[in-house]
């Protein structure tokens, strides 16, 4: 590039800045400032009425023996280990099925996708009703075929699997992403493999999976991040299944119902901050979440080309 006169450069920079100004202010005010505050607050002790008082590492030490924290971390880990892979496998399965259908693929695709549009709160209500142990149609149906249905959202052992079912129902977005990936696999690869006598299972493992590996990575990373902030469904399922929703959700005593089995990390963070008003400690919890989420984001940034700043 040839050097441009100073006046032109200044004008260009001013124009660029005019494009970016709102976003820059947004990032500074609604992200960087609160992030820095959160770091500072995590070393203090205060509530809504008092001024932050420096307490050093007390909040972080407190995390070491907090039984509720332990429980919420366990629940969130369970979701990461089960929820994320199950959803990925199901989304790949559905997209493979859709590519194999010769008739009605468009129709099935739309039907499989639609539940992803249902507001999570509404979907959760639907599932709690559907899975009501006494009167819900699912257990009714199971009874008819001779199976004693579980208590679903009312059982500590089944509440999280019920949330997984809910997540599988609303799998549409992930399915579309995988469908685009699967369709992007060059047809010629399949043809070549078929000539070599590879069967369908073999073709799937040796051609489809390696080609869509970046999509799997993307889905895994965004899935974990999503699970780390999993709040709405857990909060609503707990309060509705317990049958005593606190008005407005508020700070529900029934968060985590039954027996803390749906008590995820964000629920604990929210309860500490806005239920107990232990704002210093809440910020320490937020910092822990920040470190984990950032680490996972970095994995994605290092691997996926689309996320590098280069024009593709």
């Amino acid at each position: 590039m040839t050097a441009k006169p100073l006046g032109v450069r200044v004008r260009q920079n001013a124009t660029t800045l005019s494009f970016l100004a709102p976003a820059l202010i947004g990032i500074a005010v609604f992200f960087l400032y609160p992030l820095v505050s959160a770091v500072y607050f995590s070393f203090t002790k205060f509530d809504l009425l008092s001024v932050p008082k420096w307490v050093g590492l007390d909040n972080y030490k407190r995390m070491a023996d907090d039984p509720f924290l332990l429980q919420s971390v366990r629940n969130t880990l369970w979701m990461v280990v089960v929820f994320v892979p199950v959803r990925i496998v199901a989304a790949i399965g559905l997209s493979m099925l859709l590519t194999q259908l010769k008739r009605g693929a468009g129709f099935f695709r739309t039907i499989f996708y639609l539940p992803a549009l249902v507001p999570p709160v509404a979907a959760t209500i639907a599932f709690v009703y559907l899975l009501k142990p006494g009167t819900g149609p699912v257990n009714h149906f199971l009874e008819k075929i001779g199976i004693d249905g579980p208590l679903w959202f009312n059982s500590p052992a089944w509440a999280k699997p019920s949330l997984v079912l809910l997540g599988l129902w609303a799998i549409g977005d992930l399915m579309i992403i995988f469908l685009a990936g699967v369709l992007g696999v060059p047809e010629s690869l399949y043809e070549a493999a078929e000539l070599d006598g590879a069967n369908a299972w073999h073709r799937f493992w040796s051609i489809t999976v390696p080609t869509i590996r970046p999509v799997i990575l993307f889905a895994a990373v965004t899935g974990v991040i999503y699970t780390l902030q999993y709040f709405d469904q857990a909060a609503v399922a707990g309060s509705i299944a317990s049958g005593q929703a606190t008005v407005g959700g508020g700070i529900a005593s029934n968060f985590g119902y039954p027996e803390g089995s749906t008590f995820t990390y964000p629920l604990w963070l929210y309860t500490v901050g806005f239920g107990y008003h232990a704002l210093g400690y809440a910020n320490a919890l937020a910092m822990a979440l920040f470190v984990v989420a950032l680490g996972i984001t970095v994995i994605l940034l290092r691997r996926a080309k689309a996320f590098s700043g280069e024009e593709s």
Partner: protein
Amino acid sequence: MTAVLDRRAKPLARPAPDRRVRRQNRLAWIARHSIAIALTVMFVTPVAYLVLLSLMTSDQALTSDYWPNSWHPENYWRVFEVTPLPHYLLNTVFYAVSSTTLVLLSSVPAAYALAKLKFRGRNALFLTVICVMMLPPQVVTVPLYLMWARYGLTGSLAPLIIPALFGDAFCIFLLRQFLLTIPSEYLDAARVDGCGEWRTLLRVVLPMARPGIAAAGLFQFFYCWNDYYGPLLYTSENEGAWTLTLGLASFHSVHHVDWNLVTAATVLAMAPLIIIFFFAQRAFVQGITLTGFKG
């Protein structure tokens, strides 16, 4: 749904398979379509069940029946009369429409700069946008809440709408990915014709970017419509500002026995999204595929 996802229809010229293979193929065809139909039933059942419940009497809705003895479509306007649903609905529409409009206005220029203008620190800025997009909102919840409380704005939807004036990371990311697909030659031509950057954006880029903007707008609208965490955090103290999601979650206690009304309200909360989807499928699916990965 969209052209992006419609392919793999061309049959290969192959020697005609023998009878055994043909039979196998037909069996596979039947198996696949049976699975697809079974899955369809499973995907449709929850919504169908809700709709059926919402048409029952409140007594029948408490039983394990799934087919109404008598049909009560009037539940749908009763829920408007006996619950604050109209109020919630109004708040939700206000939140979703204003936030979407403002987010697009503030994000399009930023996305354009990130995609098409050269400036120092562009990569760093784009990485920051991605980090903002990826990090859980709970990380900065407490300081943000304190900030809004200081200005006396908690108890209203203002803390959720005002930030829309300053762009949204996901929206900027999505629009940037879309704008990258517009060839720079068009922009260069406009610049040669003496258009400034703003004019180029408004006259040349905007018309070409319409599908991307539609997708970003839809996502933002749906996000706001479905948002539960935000309204819970900022408005639970003031019922006058509650949105649909918040109302739905608390209906259960207030109208404890009227499951038919609760489900009617739930159906009403999801209906607009599904209707919008059928009008805008293309933009939608294109948007989803844009959010992913690339190679």
